[in-house]
């Protein structure tokens, strides 16, 4: 027991005291510099000659309260679309990436199709895909055409699936060939090797960039409103047209940022964890 009760030497005590003083000092410096910068910003903005006009047309509390319900119900559409499209695009991307790794002549057409898909949809602007699907497909007047919202979601899934497929593929290729040799030498089939050895390592490695693309998707789902459905930004636009005041846009913007914060925080956390694992810690 005596071994555990370590009495710090005078030198160590002096060091600890010095470090404590340094910490207090750092906190004080950070607080005062933040306060100074904040004051400066507020004075600069509110002191500007046009501040009163800007405040009336962008930050009117009454109009904000009036627009909130419509913008919120638009945001609910964004959230639902985001969840469905993110799941669909992740699944599609994974399937395409795996198809592109298949070897052997039988799979040539599959490989070629998967490759041309990623080339096409990464090159094609999202807006064009969106118009083609939401305006072109219903124009065919076929029986059982899905609603515009589903077609719009499909456009998002197709476009983002192309990006995510490349991210997954990079992950699959980053798994060292010796891992495949080890798995095959145990008698695992190609499919079992992919499923139990390659993909788990690949997905872990590319989780940060995948989530980053999901954050980008969150901002793009609103583009379906170009085809009719009313998302948060479109709702804000309608409210703005009625009140001749831009406050609804600010409301929508604030809500978008609030919605993104948890997703971005998760991304940062996963990235940090991946970096720690890489460094062997």
């Amino acid at each position: 027991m005596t071994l555990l009760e370590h009495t710090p030497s005078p030198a160590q005590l002096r060091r600890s005291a010095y470090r404590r003083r340094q910490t207090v000092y750092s906190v004080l410096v950070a607080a005062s510099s933040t306060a100074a910068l904040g004051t400066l910003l507020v004075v600069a903005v509110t002191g500007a000659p046009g501040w009163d006009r800007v405040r009336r047309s962008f930050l009117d509390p009454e109009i904000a309260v009036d627009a909130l319900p419509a913008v919120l119900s638009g945001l609910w559409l964004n959230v639902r679309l985001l969840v469905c499209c993110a799941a669909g695009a992740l699944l599609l991307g994974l399937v395409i990436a795996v198809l592109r790794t298949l070897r052997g002549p039988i799979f040539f057409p599959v490989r070629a199709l998967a490759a041309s898909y990623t080339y096409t949809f990464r090159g094609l602007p999202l807006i064009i895909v969106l118009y083609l699907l939401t305006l072109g497909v219903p124009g065919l007047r076929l029986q059982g055409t899905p609603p515009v919202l589903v077609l719009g979601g499909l456009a998002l899934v197709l476009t983002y699936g192309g990006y995510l497929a490349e991210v997954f593929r990079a992950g699959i290729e980053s798994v060292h060939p010796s891992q495949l040799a080890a798995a095959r030498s145990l008698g695992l089939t190609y499919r079992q090797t992919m499923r139990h050895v390659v993909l788990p390592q690949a997905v872990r490695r590319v989780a940060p960039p995948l989530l980053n693309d999901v954050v980008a998707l969150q901002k793009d789902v609103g583009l379906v409103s170009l085809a009719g459905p009313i998302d948060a930004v479109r709702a804000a636009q309608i409210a703005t047209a009625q009140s001749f005041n831009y406050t609804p846009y600010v409301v929508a913007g604030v809500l978008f940022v609030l919605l993104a914060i948890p997703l971005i925080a998760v991304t940062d956390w996963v990235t940090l964890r991946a970096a720690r694992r890489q460094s062997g810690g």
Partner: protein
Amino acid sequence: MALLRCRGLRKEFAGNIVLDRLDLTVAEHQVVALIGASGSGKSTLLRCVNLLEELDDGTIELDGEDISDPRVDPDRVRRRIGMVFQAYNLFPHLSVLENITLAPRRVHRRARAEAEAQARELLDRVGLGAKADAYPDRLSGGQQQRVAIVRALANSPRLMLLDEVTSALDPELVGEVLAMIRDLKADGMTMVLATHEMGFARDVADEVCFLDAGRVVESGPPEQVLGEPTQPRTRQFLRRIIEAGRL
């Protein structure tokens, strides 16, 4: 009867002939050590036997079956052969126990409880029982390599291929891995091992084959090949090894 019989093996990589009309026969319960300079084709030979490389000529028979026939399912052949690599090649995302039970569960369709019980027993036998739930990056090199050997053994292979399994290890960790291979020999396991440990080859091998430029230049009992080599190239190789202080 011969468990493994390689006849006239040829393998080239982009015009570079790595195996050249190579013959090798391994009887059941026999331990054969492959020695030879770096680049002499030891790893390639082991990879060909495990069907990880495609042959350019020759035949390989395992238990009398021609496994180099392209109609043979390589996955089925590999289940009868255990392979251990220089760099361990454990799966970093799986625990020790999961590494060992992966093939028994997925390939041999054993129940999870049964596979884990067998894995724990094998781990206990080599003194690694306490590491069952650890991840590979928490183990020393010697422990990782012993887990890799256990992983290969969990398939109950007929033949073990060991490719310089101590070359990546710190000198003080080599002994524990070699001890494990000695125990395997005592249990009657048939093994082909590529090695730079001449002392170990002399100790454990029934036969030593000296490879040079893709051919078996000299083979025989260890005392003969390592003690009184008849071929000038074998003598030259052993002289270099002795100068490097490894014999």
